[in-house]
Structures are given as structure tokens and as C-alpha cells.
């Protein structure tokens, strides 16, 4: 239903952000939502389209028009239920998703006018937590079947939650000291406060998900042992092998992969450890123009870097959607300015780094040349430049999952190095893969979607084969007698 002409009566209002100059002084989140009235007005802009392109644009298939309407009609409790139908962790997507839904919104045909879906989503889930509407939903039935999930990123956790709610006994194995994977360590606190993850993990625990932290499957325990102990195994280890920069000087101190920097900073902020890599007082150069690079920029600001520069290999995209290349409702390849650059720093496009130089083994300068802006990135003669650089962060994307565990499990990889798992089942009996490990580096929405679909695939497989083959056999007896792996907390 929605509000007739709501999209004409109300303007799009983005989610409010704290002043960039102020927010760089702390690590608290800086994006909020409008007050309830404002959010309802934003929801009133939704037209409940006959063909909701947003819903198609969302990898999770979020029922966007439906919960927009509920918010408009002030039925928040129903809205969170509707939102949770397709999305286990709206508090993650409401903060981290780039919102392809908004790019596909019918109002976005007039560029810049989309319903602020992401903000509404965030408002729904924030309110639901505040009101105490989000409670554990333990399954009333127990199937007695066991599933191991390796990796506690959004894919692993979504998969675990779906399985647990269906009555399966799920154990999640995480090699780091806390759950969340990239979302916990790769995403800065000021974009996502980690207490939110803790709260969600508590819900999972209350739903019966067992979490084993600090255990690196494949290193601390052989993968075969998991296969032996569990009816099914899900690999959700992410795609964490970073793309490197093969230029002279790469080996210098002060040149790091972005993710190493972000992990380190995350540990510093949470007060658990870290501090090995710091940008304080340095000229920082971030190579790579994506979100990871932006997060590095944001952290560098908060550390008090002398300067921050973000450079991108590709040329500068057009300022507005190029219809001939990426017409609505596709994701537009256009110029976007990250939150971090709003806080300060410079950026440049079509830059090919040619070398890094330094003294005493420590990087001091970066040298680059301009390129043609598109493959094969031919260098433009006479554009050589050098800049001072005390910290160089490589944020150029990821190549794929770490190969060791896959090898141990005997899972083949596809051409891009991802786990081969058509419909989530790997060729190895009872072993499944989901998330970035399967599809390669991607968005948090895709991770959740993969986790959910994988859970369904696991259940279907369990129903079809394991139920007969293993359930009630000696395997479970053996497991019940086995020592639980040590917890890392």
C-alpha cells in the first residue's frame, strides 16, 4: 500500500552522519538514522512497485517493499519479523552493505532519488534490539544430526543459525580469538561497533550453536577429524589471500597488506592486543580505491597520520551513472567518495605504482606514473611522480580462499581459486562450502545469502542420505565421549 505520492511529498534524506572533523577523534560509529518520524517519512517514499527491482537487486531478496510499508504504518515489530525472514543479521547489512537495492530502486531512475532503504533497515534492527524484540529462537526439535561450520564470518554464522533453528547440532570453529571474521577484524569499530557482533553471537549461543574459538582447523586439528566427528562440514573461511603488488621495494618495512593493518587496529581498539602497525605521524599511501582502502584511510585519520593519499589503478569513473554501460537497475560504475575521504586525505585515479624506495629497509617514498585508466593500463610517458610515504597499505582486493584447508579436505578449486561447490556441496561427500570461500570476495549480503542457502543444502542432503546412513550409529556415541576442543576465550 504505502503512501500515495509519498515519494513526491518527501525528499530523500540520507542517514545522518557525525561531523567528519569531530568523528575522527574517536572510534564510535558515525552513521545513525533519522528520528522515527523521519524514517517513517523515508519509508513512505516507497511505492510498493509491481516489480520491486530493489528486492531483485538485493542478493538476500529482502522483502523491502513489505517492511518499508510496515515502517510507514508504524508497525516496527512486524517489520523486524519481515526483515528477519530473509536476513539473519540486518545490523550488519544495514551498516556495511553498499545497497545495490538502492541502486535498483525505481526512484533511482532519477539518479540520487532512491528510497533510503539501508537506513530504514538499520532503523528497524536498531529499534528491535532496543525494544528487546530480538530473542533467541531455539528449535523445539532436535534432529540429533551434527554439523561443523569452519569460519565465523557472516556466512558461517548465518549458516549456523539456520541449521540450529532447524534443530541441527552445530559447532562453529573460528581460528581467531573472537567470532565475526572479517566483519569483526576487517571492519573498523567506527563503522560497526563490535558489541553488536557479540550480542548476535550470544543469540546464536542461546539457540544452541556451539562456538569453538582459537582453533585453526587444518592446523590445530586435521580436517579429516571434523569429517569423522560431524555428519556434515561447512567451509566458510572467506577469501583472505590478498592481491600483492610486485614492484621493487615491496619488501621494505612499512609496506603492509591493508587487512593486516585493519586487524591490528581492530585489536588495538578493542584493547586486546596489537599495535604492531601504526600510521601515527606518517605520510600514508593507500593503494586501492575500494572499501578496504577507505577503511585504512579512516583509521589513518584517527591515528593522526601526517597525510593520507588513496590511489587507484583504474581511471576516474564518470560522476553519474553511465547508461550505456551500467544502466539502471544495474550497479552503476560511477564516482563515489568514501566517508573516509570526507574526513580528509587526497585521492587520485589511473595511477600505476612503479616502485617503493626507502632507507634502512623502511619505506620512505612511493613512485608512480599515470596510466591510460583501463586495461592494459599503458603508462603515460612523462608523468612520473614521487611522494613521501611512511606507511604503504595494499588494498587491492583478494585472490581467493587460503588453499591449505581446502587441500586437506580434498576440495578442488575453480579457475579463480574458489572452492568448487556447485549448489554448495563440494565433490567431497558431506562437505559444503559457502560465502567468499565459494564465490570469492564479495559483499556481506552475499555472505549471509550463501550461509542461508548452504544451510538449506546441508539439510536437504542430511535428509536425503545421512539420516539413513549415520544417524544413531556409533559415530555419535564416539563424539559424545570425545573431549571438546579448548575454547580460546
Amino acid at each position, binding site marked *: *500500500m504505502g503512501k*500515495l*505520492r509519498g*515519494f*513526491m511529498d518527501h525528499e530523500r534524506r540520507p542517514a545522518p552522519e557525525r561531523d567528519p572533523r569531530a568523528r575522527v577523534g574517536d572510534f564510535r560509529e558515525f552513521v545513525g538514522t533519522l528520528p522515527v518520524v523521519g524514517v517513517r517519512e523515508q519509508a513512505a517514499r516507497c*511505492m*510498493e*512497485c*509491481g*516489480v*520491486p*527491482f530493489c*528486492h*531483485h*537487486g538485493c542478493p538476500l*531478496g529482502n*522483502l523491502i*517493499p*513489505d517492511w518499508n510499508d510496515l515502517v510507514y*504504518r508504524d*508497525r516496527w515489530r*512486524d517489520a523486524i*519479523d*519481515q526483515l528477519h*525472514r530473509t536476513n539473519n543479521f540486518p545490523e550488519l547489512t544495514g551498516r556495511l552493505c553498499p545497497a545495490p537495492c538502492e541502486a*535498483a530502486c*525505481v*526512484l533511482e*531512475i*532519477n539518479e540520487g532519488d532512491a528510497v533510503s532503504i539501508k537506513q530504514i533497515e538499520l532503523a528497524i534492527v536498531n529499534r528491535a534490539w532496543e525494544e528487546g524484540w530480538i530473542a533467541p*529462537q531455539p528449535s*523445539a526439535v532436535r534432529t540429533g544430526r551434527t554439523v561443523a561450520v569452519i569460519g565465523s564470518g557472516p556466512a558461517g554464522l548465518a549458516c549456523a543459525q539456520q541449521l540450529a533453528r532447524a534443530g541441527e547440532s552445530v559447532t562453529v570453529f573460528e581460528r581467531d580469538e573472537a567470532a565475526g571474521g572479517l566483519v569483526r577484524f576487517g571492519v573498523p569499530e567506527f563503522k560497526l561497533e563490535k558489541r553488536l557482533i557479540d550480542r548476535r553471537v550470544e543469540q546464536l549461543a542461546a539457540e544452541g550453536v556451539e562456538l569453538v574459538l582459537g582453533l585453526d582447523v587444518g592446523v590445530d586439528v586435521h580436517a579429516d577429524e571434523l569429517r569423522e566427528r560431524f555428519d556434515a562440514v561447512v567451509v566458510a573461511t572467506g577469501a583472505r589471500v590478498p592481491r600483492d603488488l610486485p614492484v621493487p621495494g615491496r619488501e621494505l618495512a612499512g609496506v603492509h597488506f591493508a587487512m593486516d593493518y585493519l586487524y591490528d587496529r581492530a585489536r588495538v581498539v578493542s584493547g586486546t592486543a596489537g599495535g604492531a602497525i601504526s600510521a601515527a605521524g606518517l605520510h600514508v599511501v593507500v593503494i586501492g580505491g575500494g572499501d578496504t582502502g577507505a577503511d585504512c584511510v579512516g583509521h589513518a585519520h584517527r591515528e593522526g597520520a601526517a597525510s593520507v593519499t588513496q590511489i587507484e589503478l583504474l581511471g576516474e569513473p564518470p560522476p553519474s551513472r553511465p*547508461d*550505456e554501460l551500467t*544502466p*539502471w*537497475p*544495474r550497479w552503476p560504475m560511477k564516482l563515489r567518495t568514501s566517508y573516509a575521504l570526507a574526513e580528509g586525505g587526497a585521492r587520485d585515479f589511473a595511477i600505476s605504482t612503479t616502485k617503493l624506495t626507502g632507507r634502512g629497509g623502511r619505506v620512505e617514498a612511493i613512485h608512480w606514473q599515470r596510466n591510460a585508466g583501463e586495461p592494459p593500463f599503458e603508462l603515460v610517458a612523462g608523468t612520473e611522480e614521487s611522494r613521501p610515504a611512511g606507511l604503504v597499505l595494499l588494498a587491492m582486493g583478494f585472490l581467493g580462499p587460503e588453499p591449505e584447508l581446502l587441500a586437506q579436505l580434498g576440495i578442488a578449486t575453480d579457475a579463480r581459486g574458489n572452492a568448487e561447490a556447485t549448489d554448495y556441496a563440494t565433490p567431497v561427500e558431506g562437505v559444503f562450502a559457502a560465502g567468499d570461500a565459494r564465490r570469492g570476495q564479495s559483499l556481506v549480503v552475499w555472505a549471509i545469502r550463501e550461509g542461508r542457502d548452504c544451510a538449506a543444502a546441508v539439510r536437504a542432503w542430511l535428509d536425503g542420505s545421512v539420516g539413513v546412513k549415520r544417524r544413531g550409529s556409533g559415530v555419535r556415541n564416539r563424539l559424545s565421549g570425545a573431549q571438546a576442543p579448548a575454547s580460546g576465550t
Partner: protein
Amino acid sequence: MKAQGLYDPTREHDACGVAFVARLDGGARHEVVSRSLDALERLEHRGAAGADAETGDGAGILVQLPHAFLAGQLDLPAPGGYGVAVCFLPEEQRRRTELEQLLEQTVAAEGQEVIGWRDVPVDVRQAGTTAQLHAPRIRQLFIRAGGEAASDRDAFERRLYVIRRRAERAAGADLVVPSCSSRTIVYKGMLTAPQLRRYFPDLDDERFASALALVHSRFSTNTFPSWELAHPYRMVAHNGEFNTLRGNANWMGARESQLASDLFGDDLAKVLPVVRPGGSDSATFDNVLELLVLAGRSLPHALMMMMPEAHRSGDLPPALEGFYAYHGCLIEPWDGPAALAFTDGRVIGATLDRNGLRPGRWLETTDGWVVLASEAGVFDVPPERVARKGRLQPGKLFLVDLEAGRIVPDAEAKARVAARQPYGDWFARGSVRLRDLPEREARPLGEPLRSLQLAFGYTQEDMKVMLAPLAANAEEAVGSMGNDTSLAVLSDRHPLLYSYFKQLFAQVTNPPIDSIREAVVMSVQTLVGSERNLLAESPEHARQLVIDNPILEDAQLESLRAVESDVFRAATIDTTWAVDEGPGGLERAVDRICAEADGALAAGANILVLSDRAVGPKRVPLPSLAATAAVHHHLVRAGTRLQAGLVVESGEPRSVQSVAVLIGYGAAAVNPYLMLATLDELVADGLLELSPADARARAVKAIGKGLLKAISKMGISTVPSYCGAQIFEAVGLSQELVDRWFTGTPSRIGGIGAHQLALDSLARHARAYPGERDAFLPVVGLYAWRSGGEHHQWNPETIALLQHAVRHGGFETYEQYSETVNAASARASTIRGLLRFRLAGDGGVPLDEVEPAAEIVKRFSTGAMSLGSLSREAHETLAVAMNRIGGRSNTGEGGEDPERFLDERRSKIKQVASGRFGVNIDYLTNADELQIKMAQGAKPGEGGQLPGHKVDSYIAGVRLTTPGVGLISPPPHHDIYSIEDLKQLIYDLRCANPGARVSVKLVAEVGVGTVAAGVAKANADHVLISGHDGGTGASPISSILHAGIPWEIGLAETQQTLVLNDLRSRIWVQTDGQLKTGRDVVIAALLGADEMGFATAPLIATGCVMMRACHLNTCPVGIATQDPELRERFRGRPEHVTRFFFFVAEEVRRLMAQLGVRRFEDLVGRVDLLEPDEAIARWQARGIDLSNVLRAPDAPTGTPLRRTCPQVSPLPGALDYDLIAAAREALEDAVPFEGTFALGNANRTVGGLLSHAVTKRHGRAGLPPGTIRIRLEGSAGQSFGAWLAPGIELTLVGEANDYAGKGLSGGVLAVRPSDAAAFAAEQSVIVGNTVLYGATSGRAFFRGLAGERFCVRNSGADAVVEGVGDHGCEYMTGGRVAVLGPTGRNFAAGMSGGVAYVLDDDATFASRCNTELVALDPLDEDDEAALLRLVSEHAARTSSAVAARLLAEWGDALTRFVKVMPHDFKRALAEAVSAGGVGFLTRETEAAA
């Protein structure tokens, strides 16, 4: 011809001209016969001929036995002592002898005596070739009365009837006995009107005399040889159609087991079944009427039972009201347009259906003649000898009693019948009203609400899209755009059984009814209880329970269930089965339920409640429709159906469609308990801001209204006659299933059986039990696309690909689009998706030898989307694009801005729809094609409405209406109530623009092929078969989803029927309905289409994103909106559309190359190039069988499969050519012309061609006022003065028929009787029905009375008349009308603009005026001036005595007038005046002022 493929001869329709002539003195004369035949010949234009122009559809005459003549042929007893059986016998000798012996033996067996046989002489050369080929041998058998029959004339008639029925039953189809009576005799055949008297020389014999003669000329939609189906039948000749036939015939069959008659005694068994199989609706009616009369009721009595007049309490004398109430307990109305002439040889008369949908005009002369005919002017009589003139009125009897020698007034005839018994008392004492039963507590739900909702397949959409609006607005929800989802049989989503049924609707051969504006004829009241012997009458017959609304709330059902008396007893039968039994349990449950029903009846129950309340974890509900229909047909077959009424108590029904289907298959009432409980939930959830009781009451009301709309689509006006009438076609059900449970329902592509239904029920049940905690209802996405939901052909992927293709992506992207669409359609959606091509074995032909795309695109047109539904920008973009490629765009029903007529923005196709918006002579003259829209895919059988806020000054200007005033399109064209009316409109349009091709748009449903054949015979050039899935700017959702069928079936049926009739060659066939790709186009061509229409696809090319908000005026891409701010957002360009069509054509070319066909025209009708795609396993599992669709008709080799030659023009010989020739100087140089001409009723549309000539030369302004003045004398044919152009004045001395002044476009009409007339003009009918329909400007003056629907949809003409029938000024939007005399009922229904002044001498007008939209006010000064002008001109032009009297005492006269003024119009005028404008009327009248 037998049924083959999709053709079924039982679906033919007919309509006709009918007349009778009688002598009041009862004296038999040959002159009666000859003058009746003369009259028949003057009605010839109402009949039709087939492909063989000399073969008529049928003509006949019924007269009293011409004793003097017959006695001259053989030795006969005195009159009354013998009877004559007219026999159609086979030519073949041996069989004929057998049949003759059979007849003779039967005569003997019945105690009568054969006098002898007479060969009826015929002149076979007079008949057409086809008729000759099938001509029977006609012999008359003379039978002498024997035994008691010798002394009792009525007993002899019964004996003759028994002889006939026995012989017919024993013989089978090849014995036809057109009449068998001692009083009357029938001569008829497959002849044209003029052939009749030449074929039967008997008719010319001077001794061949009768005091009465009933004649008929038939127009059948298709011409398969049938001599039997010519009229008159034994007692009636009929012009019209009974829409409720299937139900009436079923109920009649069910009644037979209880028939008993003292008069017939044991003989009754010999005549059953009463209804002869294979008869038409008229024949069936005749069968039943004949039985009722022979069993002792008078002819008027029997007719009053079968065709009761519409009335509200208090309208009629109490005795008559009691008569109708009582007889409603005996028999359901036979409903549909009907002018029925009847006779038993002693009285002769005619009656008209309840809504007055057929014409009938009568006159009585001073020298004892009485004539009635479909038209005035068929009987020459000098004006001074005319004593009285009149017309048939809705529901009224016109009765001539030859024995009494006078015309018996309706009131007297009916009062006599009504007084026979104290019927009113019987009814009052015998019947019980449901609301008078003791109140009971509603039953609580036995199961959690959510579980029940899941078990019955509820979805979130049901709640939000259907139920919430239903209760909130007390109206069915409205949606827009077309239905692009899967057919139910192809859906994976366990659709409910209801969705396999498609509502049938009236098109061409009968009109849909406007259930809102003509609510006076509608009724939802139903009766339950045991019916008794139809042939008797007693107080016990009235023991029926009266239910005011067939949708019962829970407490009402409990009252009903608890009823327990010696009269009423209810039994509840469980309609669930045990889950443990699996799918097989469903059929066993049906058997059990039927057995329990038998048991309950045996135990005395007369109300059977079929209940699925027992649903729960272990019990799964049957589809409620399966249970209902199965019990209904079981009891019909068992002959016990009338012992009880069926009441359905089910959680399943929740929409108009579900309730309509249940009632259509026999339910008298429905208690949708879960829907009602769900409303409570919606209230609790805050989705409805109503009390629960209010929500339920409003939803019940809304479904009732929706139900009326559903039945009115088929032209049915009462629920009892809809009950069991099965006005549905099944799509996707197996024949076996249909034969068992839905007997008689067409189902033409096979489909699922009981097993699959059971699986679907179990799947729903499994979702509910064991339910997941807090389970959600599924979203499904039936109305709006949802990821993972129901398949939609238009989805984010296909829309985005198409838009990218036409903007930047080019043919490469188009190919991705078409592959996606074609693959998806194969996977999930449509019938064409199940087909594949038989590619040429030799690899086809090189692509460059195939006809170029630039030629192919000329066959494409865009759909009829009105300016008004579309923004100006979008509408013009489509027009420009189509003109650039040589295709055609369509104005839609909204007129066209004259500024576009001559440039690139013109639409070649100008639509003529029921609202006639903007249809004036200028619009018509500027068309290349004139399309008569009979129906629209998204809402066939319905009208439309454009709310006032959408009518801005531009739209109002184009539509020739007033800004801010809402506009209503009626469901029917008020000038097309039957096929001969369509023929007349086609003729009118040809006159208005002889150069334009005339097209008729139909919507696919069973029988559309026969309608299309009728269209071809009615002289159209082009027929469009639209699929059910066409788009709309606004329609009730049940119409979008549940009315009409896929075009593949409709087109195939059309092609097969046209080819079998050899009519295909003279008419172009077009199809449309969700066409999207070249593959769709090629399949359409192979199934028989020459041309294709597209609407949604080109809209999408211009930027439509299927918002489905067209009805909300909020289209965010500026297409379906008039909001200036939103219109600015429109980004479509003509190139987008032209690219799309070229891409489609290119895809077509590639397929043609593969098929080995070089020229497109060689694709048309080549069904042999198609075959079912066996690779698609899923639908095979569902039992779909496309062999009927792919059937090549058995026509002689060489019969054209496509249009090869033009129609023969009907125009040569038109009077207008004389007028044009005479007025040449006036036409060319505006030199004033005056002239006088004689005319007759065969001169139709006088002034049409002349107006075209004026407009062609002088444009819309026409000639200066009064340039051409023509006086005409005589009886004018139909459509007198249609679309008369400015500058022409026609004055008719005589009288005019229906549709006078249709579309009047600025000219002036006057009609008055001759000065010599003996009758009082103001008491006599001067013009027929539907006068000034769609008039846009000009003036008209009628001295005398007009018929029904005077000034219907007038938007600007001024008119004066001296009295009108029912529904005066209906839907009027502009102009001034003065009525100087009496009015019928329902005046001003749907009137949103203009003013009427009504002389209300006896101050009763208010009770006959429909004040929903209008107020009755005194006249103000402006009104008085305007009225004076009108009345003065009336006096001047017609010499009206009434006008003279009024003018003589004008001051006093003014006080007796009432002004009828629409609220909307008053407001709009006030606004316009305050805005500084003249504030009046249309752009045209403004310009003229």
C-alpha cells in the same frame, strides 16, 4: 457439421428480426400472411447470410392452420378435428420410410388416426447452394383426433405433443418436427427473408389464410447448415439470447424426476426429457414453455414464470409481487436479452426481458390490424389510419387476444394471472427469511488461525492486496496492467482450484449489464429448500428459506444449521479427508460425501451444509469447489437435486472469484469462515481501522457487489439464475475430471485430475501441520513480482534487458532479452511456451531471401491505450513510432486531439468504445481504421471509470466533456445488444468513413470463434482476438486474473471456425495479449493471425517498469499519469519503440528462414509447422493436450487460410448518395439547399455519408448552420441522423427507429408524425431505443415518446422529447435535455454532467430518478431562458401540441419542471466560473458559442 478441434456447433448464437401481424376480429385472411411476409422482407437487413451469399441463416412463419387451403389438398375433418405434424425428413428413401412408419405407428399407439401425408411443394432453386445441399424433405402428416381427444381440443393438443416427443425420442436427431398442432403450423428453413415465400408456394395461395402470423429472420454467428434452428419454434420466435441457458437446462433436467400432471398422467414419462438435446437457447425455452402450457397454465402465466419482470418491493400491485415471489420458488428466471413473440394460435403477443435489451415496436390501426416488429416501418399504413403506436417495454407483456378482439394491457393480463390463486399469501406463509430464524452463536475456530490460513493456502498478498481493501473500501481491490503470471495448470505454487476457472462474459451476441448504474434489475436474494413439482401449484410450493445475501456470516450459518422443523432440516457433511489416506483419499471422500448427501436427503434434509470445519492436523480439506460441484452434479444425475439447497462452509473462499465459482456450480450460499476470522486478525493488527463487525459486514457487502459484477458480465442479473449456470470455462483440467464434477463445462486443453488436486491440497496442509512456530504466510507474488515467487513474464531481468536493448544495447541485448523471455515462457508460463517449431528439414531458406523487417513491422500495432490512461507524452510517442514504421497506433477509448489528425502524431486506429468519448464525425472521418471495442482482455464484460480529478482541461477537451467531471464507460455498447446491432454499427461506421477499415475487438473465451464468424458476416474487415492477459489502467483484480482465456486458444478457435465457414478469406485476424518476442509473433501467425498487437512491451521500451500504479495516477516514469510533475519524468522516445519492433521483426525473419518460409503471409494458419514440445516434461505430467489447438480444420483444399479479398460493401444504393448528389452545390460552396425525400426502414444511417462528405471537405466546423435542410417522409431505419455534421438539418415526418441521432456531431434533427396522424403524438412512440447515444453537439427534437436510454452518454447535444422510457440520460456528461412528458425508471443513472429539465406534472418524478449522482433542483433564471429556447424551437420544428400548450401558459409551466443536475457537474461549473471561464460545456460547444 460436428465438433472438431476447438469448434463446437452448439456455441453458435443467433439474433434476428421478428414480427407478427394479426387481425383483431380473429378473421382468417390471406392478407395477414402476405403482409407478414412483406414485413419480414423489410427486416432482412437484420438477418444475415454466410459465405454463400444466397444461403440465409433462417427464416420462417407460424400461422393458424389454414383450413380452407389444407382442405383443398386432401380430405379433412372440420377444424379442430385434426392436427398437422410438419416433418423435416431425410432425403434418403429408406431412412425416410422408417421415420414415416415410426410416426404413423406412434400416432396409432396414441389412439389417433393417420389421415395421410402431404408433400409440401418447394421450389428448391430459391434456396442458396449450401441450404439446398442440406435441405430436408418436408412432409406434412395429417392426424385425426381420436378417443377423448376428439371432443377435447386441449387434450388433442397434448396428444399431438406426446406423439411428437415419442417419435423424436425414438428417431434421434434426423427427425425434426417443426410443429405438430391442431391450431398452428410452421413453415421455416435455412432461407433468407425474401426466399421464404418463394421457396414455399403454399404461402402465396390465396386460400392460405390465418388471423395471425408470426415471422422471423435469423442472424446466426456462424452458418453451419441447420434447417431446424430457423424460427419460429412451436410457440415462440425469439430475438435475443438466454445467458443462463446451461443452468436452466440443468435445473430443468433435475426437475424432471418430480414432474407430475393430472392432465398428462402417465403420458408424462413418454415425453421426458422435456428439452430436446442439441437445441438452441430459443428451442430449449420453447420446449419448457410448451410443456408448462400443455400442462395447464396459460401462455401469459408460463411466460411470467420464466421471465419475471424486475421490480423492487412496492413497484408492483401486491398480488403481482406475490405472484413473482411465489413463482421464484418454482423456477429460476431465464435471463438474457429477449424480445419474445409468442402464440398458441388464440392469443399472440410479445414480451421483453427485464432490462429492455431488445427493440419491439407495435401499432394498431383503426381498421383492426395489429402489427409488432423489431422495427417500426415494416407495415404500410396511412398515418390517418394509425390508432395507436407503442413499444415493448422491459418486463412487460404485449398481448393480443383474438377471441376477445382486443389488445389486453399488460397490467390487466398480469392481474388476471396473479389473481388465480392467493400466491402472495402462499409465499408469505410458506417462506421463511433467514434473518427471522433464531439467532445463534458463531462457532469459534477449531484450530489456530495461522494453521488454517496455511492449510487453505492463504498468502500475505491475500491479506494485504485483496482482503484489506475489500473490507476497508467495501469494494473489490483494483489493480492495473495485465496478468503475466503462469496459467494455474503450469504453476508450481499449488494454485487453488478456483483459479482454473475463467469467467465467461458477454460480447456482441448479448450485452453485459451495468450492475452499478442499472442496479434496479439486479438481485442477490437466493432461496434454499426443496422444490416441488413444477407442473402443479400449492401453498407447499412456497416453503423456501429466503436468504438476502448468499455470503453468510458465521452466526447466520449457525441459525441455518440449527433449523429443524417439519419444513426445513439442515444436515452438515464433512468435506475433509484423512491425511493418512494420501492423495487417493480425495476421490474416496467425494464418493463418501455424495453418499452422505443421498442419505441426508433420504432422511428429509433439505439444506446440505458442506463443511470443512473438521480440518486439522489429521484432516485435509477438499477444494471446496470440488466438493460442491461434485455433490451438485451427483444430485442432478440422481434426480434429487431439487430436494435440497447446498450451502458451503469453507475456509477456502476469500475472493469474489471463489464465491462466484461456488455459486456457479450450485451453491446457494457460502460461509467463508476463515476469511471472516482473518479480517478480525487484520483489525487486530491495525491493518484495518474498523471494528471487526464492520470489517466483516463491509467485506460481505463487497463480495456481494463483486458477485453482481461477475454475473452481470454475462448479462445475468439475478443470483438464482446464475446458481448452477456454470458460466465458466476451465483451463487446465482433465476432461475426465470435468465430466464427473463439472459436467458440461468447456475444458479444451486437458489438464490435471483429482490426483494432482489432492497433491496440491496435501502440500498446503503439510505447510500448516506441523507448522513452524510463528510461521509466516508465504508472499507468493501473484499480483506483484517477488523473488522466488510466482513466475512473471515481466520481471526485473526482462524489463531491464529490453530497456537496455532499445536504448544502448542493440540487437545483441535484445537477443538476450528474447532468449530469456522465450525460455521462461517455455518453462513456466504460457501455452505458446509448450510449443515448438517443426523446422524445415532442408535447413530452411537463406535469411536474405526472407521478407524484409521493414515489411513485417507493418503488421504490428500498438494496443488501445487511451489518452487519459496514458500521458500525452507517452501516447504521442507510441503514435509517432508506429507511423514511422508504417504500423498502427490506437487512440484507445479517449478520443484524439484534432491537432494530431494530420501529423505524425495521429493514431491510425481510432477506437469506438462504449463511452464514445471524443467520437464525433471529425474523429471518425480522420481514421484509417475504426475499431469497435467489444471487450478488453483485462476486464471483458466491464466498463470503466475515469475519476474527475484525472479529467484535466486537455483530457476533457479531447473527450468532449467537462474538466473535473468523472467519466463512466458503460459495460455494454448501448447500441450493441446483439449481433445484428453490431452489423448496424459497422454499417454506421462505414457511412461515417467509407474509406476506413472496420475492426472489432473481442476477447478470447469459449465460443469466440463463432462470434468472430458473426463479425465477419456482419461485414467487418478485421477482427482482433485479445488474450485474457491484456493490460488495463484499472480493473478489479478478480477480472485481471480470472476472466477470459489465453489468446492461443481463442485465436486457434477463431481460425478454425472461420476456415470451416469459408469466412476467413474476407477478414483480417489480429491477436494480442502479452506478445513480447519474434517467437510469439511467429506462433501467433501460425495459429492464424495476419497481424499482431503489442501494448505492454512497447510501453516498457519507453520506460514503463510495471509499477502497476496506473490506477493511482502516480506513475513514476510519467507514462500512466496526468500529473504534470510526473509527466516531466517521461524519457521514452519514438526510436525506442521503433527499435523494439525492428528487433522483433528481425527475430521473426530468422525463425522464418529456419522454417523455410519467405513471405510472412505464408506463415498464416500453418499450424502444421507447430507441435507440442515434448522436451517439457512437467506440463505433460499435468495432462495438457494441445491437439485441439493445433488441429487443422477439415476444409476443402484451397480454402484460404488468410485474408485474401475485401468484404462486399453494403453502401451502394444508400439514400445518402441521392442526398449528396442533390446537395452538391451546398457541399462544395455552402450554397443553401433544401429538398424532400421519401424513405423507409431499410434506409439506415440516413445522413451518415452526407456528414462524412461535409467533414471531409469542411473539417470539424462543417457548414454554416442551416446550409443543408432536408425533409424526409416515412419510417426511417436505424441510426437516423447518426453523426450528423454541423450545417445539416434533417426533418423527418413519420417516425424513426433505434439509435436515432447516434453521435450527433453538430447537426439538427427533428422527428414528428404526419399532420394527418389520427393518434395523439405525445402518447405514441416516435423514436426507438438508445437515441442520441454518444451525441457530442447539435440539437434534436422529437414530437412524441422515445424508448429506453434516451440521451445515453450524451456529452453535448441539446434535445427535446415528450416522454422517455427507462434509464433516460444515463451516463450523460454534457448537453441539455428537456423531457416534456413521462419518464421511465432509473433516470439519470451514472449522469455526471449536463442538465435535464423534466416536466413533472404529477410530482412523481423523484421516485423514478436515480439520485446517486444528481440532485433535483428548481430552475434558475439561466435554466428558464435555456428551456424557453428549447421548447420554442421544439414547437417551431415539430408543431408540437405539448410545446404549444406549455408556451401558452409558460409562467405556470415553469413551476412544474424539475432540474436534474449532477453534483460533480455543478461543482465543476462553479470552479470553472470562479476561475473566470465561461464555465460551460465542452470545447466544441464553447467554440460554437
